[in-house]
């Protein structure tokens, strides 16, 4: 794949932002351009993660695809979702049906049957 040429972008900062950029540049020992580039990359990564999480929450994408889009591992995506307390749609229905499937396949106690019946009643 041919390497694409970098594209130059210029931005305007107010004096406070400019002073802060100079300060960060000194602290990090990097040029102001390098600091800006790092911040843009971090901002883009954060933006992608947010978009992936919103899409996942709406049920528009699965976990793996969301992680791939955001450029993070599935471990990272699962932990982000947990941190933000996000449940995908249909989580409760899936849970009850999964229990029923296990009961029907491997058997289970009367107590489990009663539990499932009560959970179903509560969701309807």
């Amino acid at each position: 794949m041919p390497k694409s040429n970098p594209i130059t972008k210029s931005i305007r900062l107010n004096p406070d932002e400019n002073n802060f950029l100079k300060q960060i540049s000194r602290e990090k020992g990097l040029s102001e351009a390098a600091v800006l580039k790092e911040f843009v990359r971090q901002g883009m990564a954060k933006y992608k993660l947010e978009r992936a999480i919103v899409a996942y929450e709406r049920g528009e994408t699965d976990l793996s695809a969301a992680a791939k889009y955001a450029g993070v591992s599935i471990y990272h995506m699962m932990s982000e979702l947990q941190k933000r307390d996000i449940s995908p749609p249909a989580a409760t229905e899936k849970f009850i049906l999964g229990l029923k499937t296990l009961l029907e396949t491997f058997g289970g106690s009367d107590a489990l049957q009663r539990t499932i019946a009560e959970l179903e009643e509560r969701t309807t």
Partner: protein
Amino acid sequence: MKQYASLDASFWINVCNANIAAYLKNYFQLYAASVVAKEIRYPLDILGIPSSTAVLFNQWVEQGVITIQDPQTPVDWFQSGENAAIGLAMENRCFLLIDDANPYHKAKAAGIKVVGSSEFIIFLFDQAQISFDQAIEAFNQSHASKKQKRDALFALELLKRYKEE
């Protein structure tokens, strides 16, 4: 009798964190698509971190407990990822072990039996394979949301109460 099951990364990560992976062997003959294996091995292969989740997965593959197998025709319901696990479950007419609820409706419509780690924890408690306290600890270690954990803990409490009656 053991059931064939296609494993998804989300389920594997949660059962490993919950310390209940060992019980899977009692109920399932496990299969994993190579894309799923890649997701699970990520910390080890890409980051060089010997995460117990990835290490145990590799051990089970070496021991033949998990078989790596790719579907002939992966489904194209979302963009990628779980599609291979679902495709494998459809082709082998087997269980799909997955914690992601988003592909659930389509998997259900295709007649696939879907089970998540929360259900498996409740089931293990019912089968007296784990104690009530172990089940609670397993939920605490899972990556599920607070609502999912609340639902599961409610079911666990209910089951315990009915068992004691």
